[in-house]
């Protein structure tokens, strides 16, 4: 896989990166550049496709093929590109506004079709490029420029939305942990089908510290569970906290007298019901966030099916012959 021997800098374009100093986007950019040195994909086969927003300037900074498209439509452009040429490794870059508001329709349908693309959703719970309006992931009641008395909109949970749309790969990671992010990107690349990665990302200007308790190095270990497949869900600074299943609910417990390691819930990324609980959990007050691959299932990809159907029809009807088509049906001669 590493015979290509790319260095991280091979994926950096010659353009000045124009994000605000301190923006979470920098570490995401750096992580993808690192991840691509590990995926074994040839540089010319990599394409970054984005919509509109701060996140969507991303392709300009990658030394791959890149297309900065229009607001919300990146999933559609990426879908067409992958179906047209399944050999390409397509990375779709989007933000919470781009993806879940104006692009909501295309987002769910790309997931539904299971097109083999990798989607990176930068979630900072705010509109950055349009300068600070609430987004579909903003907390209800949040005061922003377009909601001076608090936003009334209920909040979208991107993971649950993806789950409902039939996603075959749902993963969460955070901008302040480049190593985890990189690992998740490499994992996502291996998955055949739409890989949905939600990155909790900070906006220093309009929504600073929006995920702080979950992402801050000092506090996150008490508020975040790093999931690993077939491993008990254990967390906390001292490693003294864990997750158990009680009835149909998850519960945070302290490991000690009452609960032992063997009582903890073991993560199974192929277990759909468990994934649903994990995706739903942090809506409940004070619950930790789950990072890592929350759900994965193997299923046929749309792009493979398109190619297979063409082969099937060719086998049945023979390669298309235009002259034969022209003369099919009733043809008559005038002398």
């Amino acid at each position, binding site marked *: 896989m590493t015979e290509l021997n790319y260095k991280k800098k091979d994926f950096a*374009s010659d*353009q000045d990166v124009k994000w605000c100093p301190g923006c979470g986007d920098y570490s995401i950019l750096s992580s993808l550049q690192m991840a691509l040195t590990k995926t074994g994909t*040839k*540089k*010319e*086969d*990599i394409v970054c*496709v984005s919509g*509109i927003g701060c996140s969507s300037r991303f*392709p*300009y900074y*990658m*030394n*791959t*093929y*890149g*297309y*900065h*498209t*229009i*607001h919300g*439509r990146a*999933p*559609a*452009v*990426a*879908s*067409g*590109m*992958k*179906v*047209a*040429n399944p*050999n*390409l490794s397509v990375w779709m870059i989007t933000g919470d506004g781009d993806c879940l508001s104006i692009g909501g*329709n*295309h987002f769910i*349908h790309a997931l539904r079709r299971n097109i083999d693309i990798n989607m990176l959703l930068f979630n900072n719970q705010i509109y950055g490029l349009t300068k600070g309006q609430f987004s579909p992931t903003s907390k209800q009641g949040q005061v922003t420029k377009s909601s001076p008395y608090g936003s009334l909109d209920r909040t979208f949970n991107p993971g649950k939305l993806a789950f409902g749309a039939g996603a075959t790969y749902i993963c969460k990671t955070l901008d302040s942990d480049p190593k985890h992010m990189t690992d998740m990107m490499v994992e996502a690349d291996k998955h055949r089908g739409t890989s949905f990665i939600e990155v909790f990302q900070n906006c220093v200007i309009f929504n600073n510290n929006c995920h702080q308790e979950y992402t801050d190095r000092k506090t996150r270990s008490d508020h975040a569970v790093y999931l690993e497949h077939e491993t008990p869900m254990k967390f906390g600074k001292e490693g003294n906290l864990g997750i158990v299943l009680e009835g149909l609910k998850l519960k945070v417990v302290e490991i000690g007298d009452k609960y032992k390691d063997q009582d903890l819930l073991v993560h199974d990324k192929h277990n759909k019901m468990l994934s649903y609980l994990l995706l739903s959990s942090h809506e409940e007050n004070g619950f930790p966030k789950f990072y890592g691959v929350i759900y994965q299932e193997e299923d046929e990809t749309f792009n493979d099916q398109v190619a297979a*159907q*063409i082969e*099937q*029809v*060719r086998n*049945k*009807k*023979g*390669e*298309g012959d*235009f*002259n034969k*088509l*022209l*003369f099919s*049906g*009733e*043809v*008559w*001669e*005038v*002398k």
Partner: protein
Amino acid sequence: MSSNDHIELESVVIRFSGDSGDGMQLTGTQFSNTSALMGNDISTFPDYPAEIRAPQGTIAGVSGFQVHFGSNEVITPGDEVDMLVALNPAALKANLGSLRKGGTILANTDAFTYKGLEKATYTDNPLEDNSLSDYQVIEAPIDSQTLDTLEDHELDLKNKKRCKNFYALGICYFLYHRDITPTIDWINEKFKKFPELAQANIATLKSGYHFAETLEAVVSTYKVPSAKITPGKYRQINGNTSTAWGFLRAAQAAKLPLFLGSYPITPATDILHELSKHKNFGVKTFQAEDEIAAICCSIGAGLAGNLALTTSSGPGIALKGEAIGLAVTYEMPLVIVNVQRGGPSTGLPTKTEQSDLYQALYGRNGEAPLIILAASRPNDCFHMAYEASRLALQHMSPVMLLTDGYIANGTEPWRIPDVDKHYNEIKHNLIEEAPANTDGFKWIERDEVSKVRKWAIPGTKGLEHRIGGLEKDYHTGDVSYDPINHELMTNARKEKIERVVDNIPEQELEGDSSGDLLVVSWGGTYGAVQMAVKQLQKEGVRISLMHMKYINPIPKNVPTILKNFNRIIVPELNGGQLINVLKAKYSIEAIGYNKMQGLPFKISELVEEFKKAIQ
């Protein structure tokens, strides 16, 4: 029957009309196919309601199919109807206005019941109140005759009733000396797996034919001799199929995969249906979640090196507007088909209009020029779809091909072209292999003459580049907010489209190169306009026709043509869109003739208008 028993006619127009479940489209198609096989030239037009099933027996539910067949060249489905087949009172009421005085009505008397008349909003039975005295009426109890014919057939009542359209067809076949064999063959093929249905339909067809034979004493029959048609092999084709085939062929000629992203909309959907059938040509059809996704996935496929196509109608094109602008600024090949219908908004989904020219020219933000073509008749759609693909690929630009509901659904015979000779190669700008030295490659670099860039696609080593909707530096292609550069780029994109004139044919003129009146038309009105012009030319009027198929850019010789006529008239099925473009561009004086009824032009109304314009 001796030749004295029938009247010889140059051409005949029949309209089959009934309830939208009565199978009128099928009946009309059979009649026109048979006529074509018998050597007539034909043109057809289906006219059906926008609702899948409007209430039975009402005027809203009337479905029609008009056939024009003749011994001379037939280009339109005809103005006035010579014979109206009315399977119920609503069909009579809805269509009587189109029937010429003295024309024939075939009325299904079984349907003229109290209830049927009431649904059609008749207070009296028109078959009994003398209101049809100007016409020749053939009364036929079609429902009961059909059931009587099928008395001994092993079919349920519902299926028996559905055979009545073949009874009506049988009557028409006798009246116009049509051969019933092709239809019998067709029925046998169609109902191969259901022999009872095949036998029932054939029996009903023959029964109708024989019924008409017994009416010989009271009704004249008609004969339309074979047309003098250019020798060659022919087939029937409608505009949407013709369009779809044009793209299939263009992809082969360009040696590129064909990709269609589309969202269903009347009257464009049949292009999607047709291309979906031909997966063995390698065509990829993507039925998207909405119009925007449809064009965006096509853009993705185009960026990946496919001949990319999206098909829609006016409201869908409105939604695609932003993405069309993106393709303009990407300077990438993309074909957009707009099968126009009545607007604005949802407008008249199943009726024709040509009111999207402004939308094609201006319906985007910013200065966003693209190439615009318009097909003139059903079989021309093939050629223009091929042309649209050729120009998109050769000029790295979106091309909008305008057709309309009238030519998209209309059928006519098509002399099958020698595609290996005339539609065999489209050269384009795709960099197929990575060059040895890729240093200094700039995706934006333009050909000096055509101003066209190269088409570098993902998968090609060393040509990695980034393109976006943001303005690009003229030299490097990088994002640029420089004001002077924006003007330079705006002009470059404009100039690129203007230079397409060197790659399109000169404007044709039908008639003398100077005269009293020049008729300027475009798109799907060609048939009617040409017939009207020809008729006046025969009468000695100094009139010529300039029918435009290349609308942006306009062919070079157009100003010269315009200069040589005393008067110019521009008939359009809109409020005057092309005329304003010509006035603005060439400062000419011209008269508009505009019709916005969701209906095509009649030859007779055009003749009248052209005469008026000369006086």
